[in-house]
């Protein structure tokens, strides 16, 4: 018997013969908690990974969602971000789990994402990329004790480059779209690097403004190709 990382109930992990043969590790969650996560599935926006099943047809423009269309129509943002890929749908369940993890500070919950995050990442990206976690401001990092984006990056066991620094500490969620677009959020804290391909890592993709800003900086710094990968797509 083991304890479920999320609901703390005891459960019997299900192990079949194939699990013994492949030395697969038992899930850290009970079946019921595991079932509550919704992976992003079906048809989705080619650019940002938003599932079309969750938005009305009027927000769809061919292969794109209208949000991504807006990014592509603006000269300064076109081709800044190659693509975004996300693991889970940001539903009520995911909201609760992320709150416990990030705001209540239960760091260990990152283990609940490990298998899905690794599988989905390597489905869309190759192993010769460099990961750039979206940073927190100094104050927020102290308050939380850890950076959730860095914690996600660490489970991918790829090189991590902490090259971004936050200049704006205001919460993104408190701003309008226009305000988000205008504010300078980051700066590069080093020029001593050359990467061909970077993948930005964050917990959430909401409007995309965070990753677009970070991607533009990296591009200006000389990175050829920048994509992003987030735990959930709101």
């Amino acid at each position, binding site marked *: 018997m083991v304890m479920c990382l999320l609901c703390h109930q005891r459960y019997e992990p299900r192990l079949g013969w194939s699990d013994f043969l492949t030395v697969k590790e038992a899930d850290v969650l009970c079946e019921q908690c595991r079932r509550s996560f919704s992976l992003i599935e079906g048809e989705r926006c080619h650019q940002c990974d938003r599932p079309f099943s969750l938005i009305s047809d009027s927000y769809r423009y061919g292969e794109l969602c209208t949000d991504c269309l807006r990014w592509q129509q603006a000269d300064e943002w076109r081709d800044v971000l190659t693509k975004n890929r996300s693991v889970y749908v940001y539903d009520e369940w995911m909201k609760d789990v992320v709150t416990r993890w990030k705001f209540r500070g239960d*760091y*260990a919950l990152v283990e609940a994402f490990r298998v899905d995050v690794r599988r989905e990442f390597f489905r869309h990206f190759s192993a010769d990329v460099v990961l750039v976690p979206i940073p927190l401001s100094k104050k927020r990092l102290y308050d939380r*004790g850890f950076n959730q984006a860095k914690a996600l990056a660490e489970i991918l066991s790829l090189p991590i480059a902490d090259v971004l620094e936050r200049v704006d500490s205001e919460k993104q969620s408190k701003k309008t779209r226009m305000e988000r677009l205008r504010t300078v959020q980051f700066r590069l804290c080093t020029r001593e690097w050359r990467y061909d391909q970077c993948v930005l890592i964050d917990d959430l993709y909401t409007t995309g403004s965070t990753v677009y800003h970070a991607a533009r900086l990296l591009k200006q710094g000389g990175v050829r190709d920048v994509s992003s990968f987030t735990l959930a797509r709101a």
Partner: protein
Amino acid sequence: MRFMYDGTNLVPEPLTAGGEKVVPISRVATIPIYELNPHFSPSSELLSFLAGRQLLLDELSFSLDQLHAHYENGYVSYQKGVVPTEQGHRCMRCGNDAPHFFASFFCARCETVCTYCRKCVTMGRVSECTPLVVSNVPPERVVYPHPLAWTGTLSKAQQRAADAVVQAIERRAELLVWAVCGAGKTEVLFPSIQRALELGDRVCLATPRTDVVLELAPRLKQAFPSVSTIALYGGSEDRKKEASLVITTTHQLLRFYRAFDVMIIDEVDAFPYSVEPMLAYAAEKARTKPSALIYLTATPNENWQREMKQGKRSAVTIPARYHGYPLPVPTFAWCGNWRKKVNRGTLPTNVLAWVEKRLQEKKQAFLFVPHVELLEKVAAILQRFDRRIVGVHAEDKARKEKVQSFRDGNIPLLVTTTILERGVTVPNIDVAVLGAEDDVFTEGALVQIAGRVGRSAQYPGGDVRFFHFGKTKAMVKAKRHICDMNDEARKRGLLW
């Protein structure tokens, strides 16, 4: 937070000049304690905020400079949040020492690998670099002459129990009050809380569930209108106030330290098994020494029942309901392999007959099932008889609305798991359990379920039916428990 410690002085990192060696508080061998400096003038705001509490730095709104000055002058102490033990760690806020309830991470606060407690993390993380702040000044004692405004009268059995509780409070003793479901135990507390407040004691009433805090707080405020009273639960507005009478969930109790002269723990048996050690720790930590400890329950566990019989545990029983009618006694009905039937989309004939009779007679009912997975299936089957039938479980987002709708009479039958076994009181209902042989239906749970029936004086009777696929010890014990209580009540002349 990290501290500089040179063998004599302890200084928080932000107040150091910089360049000194700093370590997480758990690595400081012995935290210095200073004597109270009579020449220092402390902030009364700070002292009243911290009075009887044990808080994190994040929970304080005072500057570190100010707080540390109070420390150096003996008014507050720092304590380690997590300490090492033989098998791992112990959280000093919640008492957890189970290795599987700890985790480590690279902490940005102390810039090293830091272990934290996962058990109480929802109340703000306590880790190896977390200091707990307590006040060295005991909370103020306020004497209230005759604070009780309630003018009702107690039944004979209630009065006897109330007298015993008053005595326990005066003697700073421990007492168990075993009161049947519907005995009117809140009223029993009135004379004893009055006595405590007359003595200038600080009183705490702790209970596992927020619902109960919300129900009890207004009743107590009404009974003691002149007394400062606060209700604490997740998200409560009263968090920062000081009061003589505190009604709190067990979780919020974790934030108290040597605060209460009288500790009353309601529904002590209702705590999930895993929470029990935390409750004991929190209650112990929040009490002054010496203090009175009163437990209230309708269903004491076997251990306690045995200790009572052997005379090792002082206890008083209220075997009758306030209205003087006996407790409805459950009847057992064998219903065969009901799980198989549920999987085929139907229910055993006698269960269906029981439900149909309630629907015909328009008598509301609860149907208890052992697990959430069964809930929807059983509800769906019964909706064929009446579309208004619904299921409700602990995590149900619409739980409050559904229970209210049942109270309003819009739902004829509610299919539920054991969450509704307590607290929810609706007059004139019947109750059935499907699969009473399941492990979740302990003696205590079954007694509580039976206790839902016949609560009001207008409708003191009702049907309690345990449908089962093999009688269990728990079922037999629950029935005997109820019969014993009725016998004792009859013997003591407490029934009509």
